[in-house]
């Protein structure tokens, strides 16, 4: 494992150096072009430096992305498959649109992108998840009066789907600054806990379902999940699934330039997955006492 990490780190470092040196050469070339004036040899030198500098930047970026992609598809894929029972990691795939919108509180996007798919079984509970990036189209008029279009991100985070031990005929949503968007007739429900009502808005198509799912222990566990996962969070419960989404403006398995690929990085990813085990345990999703054999 260590050797493989070193291999990817060396390749990543090489691509970063190519990019940095190319940027410097490109800047030097541009400076020479600007100050060359009538002097032909300075202009030529500027061109000779700027052109390969530009190509070097492209090559560096391509090599960087290729290395990250290989690290994910080769190293992380194997790592997660050994760490999680029936673990499947697909860096370039994600949850489908229907799976994401099944949450019931995520607005439909004009641009949909999902990646870093991770699924498996945690403590006997099946889960599926992926990073999701959603953008909406906005038309605006610039200072010259021209109508222009831009895409604005309104959701960037992770969406999860877990098996839920209670079978629900009605729908329930526990939302932090979201609202139901799936077209069903919800009623707002106030639970006994003031702290919970302050943190979340609870919507259910039937009040009994809200009280059935949200036991005092479960409310505390949801508050703990919210506390451990900063960002705008929402939970939905229907049929035999619990879905939740965290809009935290993060890509879970992103590797930034100059961040070392080493045990520390892998440990950070491991902690993310261990956080999922904690969720299963805290919410007692693994307590299948209601299901008949």
């Amino acid at each position, binding site marked *: 494992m260590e050797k493989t990490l070193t291999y990817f780190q060396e390749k990543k470092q090489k691509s970063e150096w190519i990019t940095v040196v190319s940027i410097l050469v490109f800047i030097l070339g541009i400076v020479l072009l600007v100050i060359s004036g009538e002097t032909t040899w300075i202009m030529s030198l500027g061109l000779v430096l700027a052109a390969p500098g530009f190509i070097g930047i492209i090559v560096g970026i391509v090599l960087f992305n290729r290395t990250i992609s290989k690290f994910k598809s080769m190293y992380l894929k194997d790592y997660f498959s050994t760490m999680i029972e029936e673990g499947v990691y697909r860096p370039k795939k994600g949850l489908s649109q229907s799976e994401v919108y099944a949450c019931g509180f995520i607005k439909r996007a004009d641009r949909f992108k999902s990646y870093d798919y991770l699924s498996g079984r945690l403590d006997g509970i099946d889960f599926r998840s992926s990073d999701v990036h959603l953008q909406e189209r906005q038309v605006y008029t610039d200072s010259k009066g021209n109508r222009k279009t831009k895409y604005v991100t309104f959701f960037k985070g992770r969406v999860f789907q877990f098996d839920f031990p209670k079978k629900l005929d009605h729908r329930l949503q526990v939302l932090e600054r979201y609202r139901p968007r799936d077209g069903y007739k919800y009623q707002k429900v106030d639970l*006994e806990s003031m702290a919970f009502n302050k943190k979340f808005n609870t919507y259910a198509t039937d009040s*009994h379902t809200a*009280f059935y799912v949200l*036991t005092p222990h479960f409310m505390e566990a949801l508050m703990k999940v919210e506390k451990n996962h900063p960002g705008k969070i929402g939970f939905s419960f229907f049929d035999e699934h619990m879905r939740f989404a965290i809009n935290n403006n993060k890509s879970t398995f992103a590797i930034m330039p100059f961040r070392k690929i080493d045990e520390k990085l892998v440990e950070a990813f491991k902690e993310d997955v261990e956080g999922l085990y904690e969720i299963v345990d805290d919410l007692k999703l693994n307590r299948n*006492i209601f299901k*008949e054999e």
Partner: protein
Amino acid sequence: METWQILLIIIVVLVVLIAFWYIGTMNGLRRGEVKVSEAESGIDVALTKRFDTLSKMVDTVKGYTKHEAKTFENVVKWRKGMPDDLTLEQKQEFMQKLNQVQADINVAVEQYPDLKAEKVFTNLQHSIADVEEHIQAARRLYNSNVSMLNSKIVSFPTSIVASRIGMAKKPFFEAELEKRADVKMDF
């Protein structure tokens, strides 16, 4: 416009506003009362389901235990299920009796390991666990609605409307009811 005319308009507007407020408050209280009744029906449904599941459990247990346990005599007495016209207090009493039956079943089951392993019985145990969660949910929903209605009933000026329409505070459905000698139930 004359002063008396302005005064008359103000009085009419005030009377209309008070009338609207009165009707609105009354409807709000009535809606609260309906919610409490609906939640109470939820308790009935859950209690009936628990009774049915417990009866099935007793039938299964009886196949193993040949002696006539007190448990089973109790359930036989309740063959008709939960009566329709029980007061809330009697429903709480009924729930306590079901708790006792279940405790007796658990004691009986401990003596018969084969019964514990039987699929039908384990499925019934899963069902009863789920039914109990439903009872707790129904109880909490009922108490939550009662709490909201009661706080309206005692708050001024809603209390004026409540007393005018003869609405009194509703009792809570307690999880554990102390045994009361004066409540008798014959099923």
